[in-house]
């Protein structure tokens, strides 16, 4: 198995583990851990798709001269996407945790069963 397909499968399995964690737990903080795992898994999938066989990083220095850059470098676009995605994923996790803290301060419990009448 090539390394990029191995990393792709690992990323997809991590997304599944994250979804399982979100659907199964009753504690809000464990649900947020599931979201964080799902995010990490999807970033792995993005980077794995951009790998070119036996390629190297798209930075031009003495290991990748300008003439052979188009043939030997890895796709730079998924890397640029993933940098943005990781930072925004962290920001979303921070907002989710802030909401969890406020919900705890309002109701003194973290189980999502206590908040069912806030749905709909």
């Amino acid at each position: 198995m090539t390394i990029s397909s191995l990393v792709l499968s690992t990323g997809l399995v991590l997304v599944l583990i994250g979804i399982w964690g979100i659907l199964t737990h009753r504690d809000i903080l464990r649900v947020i851990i599931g979201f964080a795992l799902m995010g990490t898994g999807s970033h792995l999938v993005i980077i794995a798709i951009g790998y070119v066989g036996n390629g190297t990083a798209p930075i031009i220095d003495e290991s990748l001269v300008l003439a052979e850059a188009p043939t030997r470098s890895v796709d730079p676009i998924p890397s640029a996407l993933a940098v943005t995605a990781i930072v925004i994923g962290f920001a979303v996790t921070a907002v989710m945790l802030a909401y969890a803290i406020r919900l705890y301060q309002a109701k003194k419990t973290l189980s999502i069963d206590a908040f069912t009448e806030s749905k709909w």
Partner: protein
Amino acid sequence: MELIGSVVVFIGAVFLFSAGLGMLRMPDAFTRIQAGTKASTLGNTLILLGVAFYHPDWSLKLLIIAYFVLMTNPISSHALARAANAVLGPAAQSPVAHPSGADLRKRSGNVVRRVAAILLVVLLGIIFATIAANYSERTSLPELAAAYVDLVPRELGAPNIITGILLTYRAFDTLGEVAVLFMVAAGLGLLLGGGSKGLDRAPAWESVKATPSTEIVKNGAEILVPLIAIFAVYIVMHGHLGPGGGFQGGAAMACCVLLLLLAKSNYRIKLAHLSIIESLAGLLIVLVGIAGIILAGGFLDSRVLPLGEFGAFFSAGAIPVLSILLGVKVGCELSVIIERFRA
């Protein structure tokens, strides 16, 4: 003729949908029975009427079916209501579900929830397995990537292609992302801050007195914090020459601030100063962008400054300037997020 039939069938479907919604939303067994019966009977009859417009020669059969529906629905709902009265007791004055009914619902709800979760994960697993099986590793770059790999060193003079993409060709997305971070930092101020005017402040005995940190953390921080700060500045300044750039340097700077906060437990960051610094950095980024419109190709075009020699420190146009501003802004915003959580 068919148009009228379609409209009537649609109205019947709307009534059936409201029946389903009512069965989910009603709080009590009796109200659920009522919602399920009345609306679904009307919905069924309307759908049968609509089908009669499509096939006029079936009218007699449809009339007989409607008669059966009208006869059986009220009788069955009456039987259900009598059973509910016998098991659950008469309906309470307030529309709150009877405890034993709610308990039954919760227990069967858990099993249903677990089975639905397993089914969803298995279904997604099948879809993902199809994706992974059809994937084959690339052997050459796609066209857009090959164009970027060719353009960035030539037109922008930056050896790091990713920084060139993030800060010139896709600089508008970077600006949008920085705006999202700014909104998150401000929103956290609303959610977690609010000193004496806060809404549901926790009572005073719950707020923690800061415990002093241990020897190892303090002494280690004295050595590491300057090193990490210098490393963060290095990453930002060499963003166009090697791996690095604004985001990476900003995140490293936030880690340095975090170590400082962990070591000195009674240190409070002046959030007002950080807000002023990050707003100024954001304003300067937009000004550089507008200078790009006036002096070069478009908004946030980095060719406002001379390109210089390839691989030198002062080169690649305005990319180092943008990297520094971006690093300052991202570092300040991440530090504000950490400080809001800490306080």
